[in-house]
């Protein structure tokens, strides 16, 4: 993706203006989730769907520009993005006064203002053992004194009242953070919805059921929740006045959004009705019949909706009948990579010996990625060529780390290393022992489709494969414990920085996010070096080297990066997909 000119600040907070109309409660946006959410306590949830809600209910310190590509951080509840101190470990945030929480019985009828102490509480809460937050990794080990506080809690409730050096509210509106060591990704982390401010009295009032009572300072608040089926958000009456004022006219999309939205108050839509629809047919039919306003385009419907160029996945157009209805197509490449990891500790597939590398390389070369992109992805994906995908800081668009599909070469390579074809038609290990790949997958229909292509790949190089199907949680467990042969994986950026991807192969992350259980001294050294640098050409060079090391050792078979096609109805205004935000509800308008 070509680099584009950064867009000027998009959102400007201004004072009260009686002429502007706030959210119209009669404007209802119908949106869809493809999988059930789990809850709305920002500390407790980590999935995309739950985060889509918390993103709209809670305010982190920082946020992203809606139109800037690649994504650009902007202040949210603070006056400015702070400068790092000289030792690059201290940050001071100034919270804007006059930001209020949504009304809730826990406030006993009083308007409750957002303060620095709320953020301090929120951050500490992520580390609280009794919360069991899946996002604790975001704060643990980062802030001075926090780990000691956690250790003191001994698995019990954290003592929030003991001040710690790392997270301090200097006064009502000033928050100071002190880091244990410089952390390049920190500002991105501070923009994540998991770190959106919660009010301590609310959390304490709802005890264990905080998932059902999200109370934040964001544009929306929860009105109704039928878990796994339906969620209703309504505009937060206490939300501060923000007027859309986009100044970017560099792309047609930015121009359109600016002309549609400028001058209006955020948010425009009074109610957001979200249905959970897991099956693709009903989702697609519901959108076609106008029951949904914004919807992702389900894979199977691609042929119905889009005109494709089989040679170039970048080129698509809406079908004329859809266009005639005024349906709008928006597209983006996800900030994700998919891959198939080898378990580098597996006695058959793992290890850094040449014969093992050759085996993995042969498997990688036998998988026809182009075919799956064409058949399964319906041309809506591009092959992964680097650990770090496009639109993420550190991405090298010239990197070609993927091995081209070449089953003939794969076979020859296996012959070279003594993987002989046995009497049963399958290859054996060089030592004569039988060779079988333990491949774990999920039991879904789409999973089966992928397995069929993998089966074909293994058949071509005459290697026996056993698919071991298990539920999601069992898969995770098996992978974490390095007790498998091969498994599929996908990583969606938590924040748009290369560090978030490079860590996937870092040796110390085995048992955490290093699915491949890969440990290479060369890679680890490069990674540790990259940690000390910000986004810079220097760091990019390190990333390139890491890509090459990984390509050589082959702990992964590279997969693809999907396009996300969004369709919106004729009456939807101001919609554009964002690389980091899960949803754009607060940025859109409806004009029927």
């Amino acid at each position, binding site marked *: 993706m070509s680099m584009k000119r950064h867009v000027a600040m998009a959102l400007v907070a201004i004072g009260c203006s009686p002429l502007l109309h706030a959210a119209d409660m009669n404007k209802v946006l119908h949106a869809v989730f493809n999988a*059930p959410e*789990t*809850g709305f*306590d920002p500390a*407790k949830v*980590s*999935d995309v769907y739950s985060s889509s809600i918390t993103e709209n209910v809670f305010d982190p310190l920082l946020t992203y520009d809606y139109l800037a590509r690649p994504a650009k951080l902007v202040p949210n509840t603070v006056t400015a993005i702070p400068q790092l101190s000289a030792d690059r470990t201290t940050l001071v945030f100034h919270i804007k006064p006059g930001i209020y929480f949504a009304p809730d019985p826990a406030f006993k009828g009083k308007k409750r203002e957002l303060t620095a102490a709320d953020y301090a509480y929120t951050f500490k809460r992520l580390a609280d*053992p*009794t919360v*069991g*937050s*899946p*996002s*604790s*990794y975001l704060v*643990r080990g980062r802030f001075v004194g926090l780990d000691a506080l956690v250790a003191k809690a001994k*698995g019990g409730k954290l003592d929030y009242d003991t001040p710690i050096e790392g997270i301090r509210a200097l006064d009502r509106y000033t928050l100071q953070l002190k880091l244990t060591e410089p952390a390049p990704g920190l500002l991105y982390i501070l923009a994540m919805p998991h770190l959106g401010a919660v009010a301590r009295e609310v959390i304490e009032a709802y005890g*264990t*059921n*905080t*998932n*059902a009572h999200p109370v934040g300072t964001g544009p929306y608040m929860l009105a109704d929740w*039928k*878990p*796994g*089926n*339906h969620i209703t958000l309504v505009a937060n009456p206490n939300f501060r006045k923000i007027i859309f004022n986009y100044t970017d006219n560099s792309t047609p999309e930015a121009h359109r959004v600016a002309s549609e939205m400028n001058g209006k108050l955020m948010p425009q839509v009074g109610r957001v009705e979200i*249905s*959970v*629809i*897991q*099956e693709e*047919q*009903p989702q697609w*039919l*519901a959108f*076609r*019949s106008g*029951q949904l306003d914004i919807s992702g385009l389900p894979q199977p419907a691609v042929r119905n909706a889009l005109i494709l160029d089989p040679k170039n996945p970048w080129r698509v157009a809406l079908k004329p009948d859809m266009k005639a209805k005024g349906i709008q197509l928006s597209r983006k490449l996800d900030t994700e990579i998919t891959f198939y990891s080898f378990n580098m500790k597996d006695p058959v597939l793992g290890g850094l010996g040449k014969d093992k590398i050759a085996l993995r390389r042969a498997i990688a070369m036998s998988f026809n990625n182009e075919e799956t992109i064409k058949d399964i992805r319906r041309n809506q994906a591009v092959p992964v060529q680097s650990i770090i995908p496009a639109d993420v800081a550190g991405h090298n668009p010239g990197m070609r780390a993927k091995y081209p599909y070449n089953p003939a070469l794969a076979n020859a390579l296996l012959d070279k290393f003594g993987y002989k074809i046995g009497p049963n038609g399958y290859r054996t290990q060089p030592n004569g022992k039988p060779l079988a790949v333990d491949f774990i997958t999920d039991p879904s229909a789409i999973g089966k489709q992928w397995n069929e292509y993998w089966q074909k790949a293994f058949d071509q190089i005459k290697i026996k494969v056993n698919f071991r199907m*298990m*539920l*999601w*949680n*069992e898969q*995770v*467990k098996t992978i*974490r414990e390095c007790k498998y042969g091969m498994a599929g994986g996908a990583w969606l950026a*938590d924040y748009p920085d290369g560090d978030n991807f490079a860590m996937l192969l870092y040796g110390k992350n085995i*048992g*955490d*996010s290093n699915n491949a259980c890969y440990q290479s001294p060369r890679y680890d050294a490069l990674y540790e070096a990259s940690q000390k640098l910000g986004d810079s050409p220097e760091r990019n060079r390190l990333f390139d080297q890491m890509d090459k090391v990984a390509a050589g050792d082959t702990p992964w078979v590279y997969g693809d990066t999907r396009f996300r096609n969004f369709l919106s109805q004729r009456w939807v205004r101001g919609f554009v997909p964002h690389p980091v935000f899960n949803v754009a509800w607060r940025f859109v308008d409806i004009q029927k």
Partner: protein
Amino acid sequence: MSAYIIRRILQMIPTLFGVMLLVFTLFTLVGGDPTYILAGKHLTAEVLANLRAQLGLDKTLPEQFMIFVRQVLTLDFGTSWSTQQPVSDIISTRIGPSLTLTGSMMIVDLLIAIPLAAAVAYFRGGLTDRIVTIACTVAMSISALVYIIAGQYFLAYRMEMFPVRGWGDSLLTNLLVYVPLPLLMGLMVSLGPDIRFYRSFFLEEMNHDYVRTARAKGLSEKTVMLKHVLRNAMIPVVTTVMMSLPFLMIGALVLESFFGIPGMGNEVVMAVNKSDFPVIKAVTIYIALATMLFNLLADLVYKLIDPRVQLK
């Protein structure tokens, strides 16, 4: 009578215990580990340990089973591991939609199937009988999935006769707007076998001697059929229906997922996929209890409508 009821209720205890043992074994010993779902993308041993402690998974199995026993005795299953909502809330909000669909389905089914079955049985052996029987057989031979997939595509989307999916807040809206299509699909599946089933009840009764007596009295065929045969044939019908009532609670899984009905079927699948043990336990125990109670109730109703029955 009361002695009978008390004894039957006492007999439920070992069955319930068996159900508990079965569910506990299936899900605790061999089921998935829910902590891996709750822990998110970045797992650390510490997070897993904390979660385990919170969920009570660090306790020994006998301890966990005792907790289960206590939950069953108090009928309080705590909160869902996945959403942390009280299980009682989840079940009470889920049961309504399921019953709205399955209940109306059952009522419409009975209203259509019984008269049709009686009519077909009356013309037994004739052309009408054969056509209806074969039509029912063909109808029931098509997979429910085909009905749902094709019905949603053609009736709702192409012909716009119904909304594609959805669920409202008021019972009336649901019944008038959202229920008809899934109801129709459900009926396509259930009517065939039910008509055949009820027809066999009618036929069976028509072979009894009392029908001959009724004819010998000079009663018209209509009276014989509608008074004497119907009343007797309703006995097995009512009992079968009573026995099936508890399973209305669990809803119609595929219908629910295709038509976006927030019912129990969806919830159960979601719970199993997420190893949400409290919800699974609660649903199983409630259904098991309902099954047993409805079996008892079926026997009592049986006694009520069939004077021959003696409760022992």
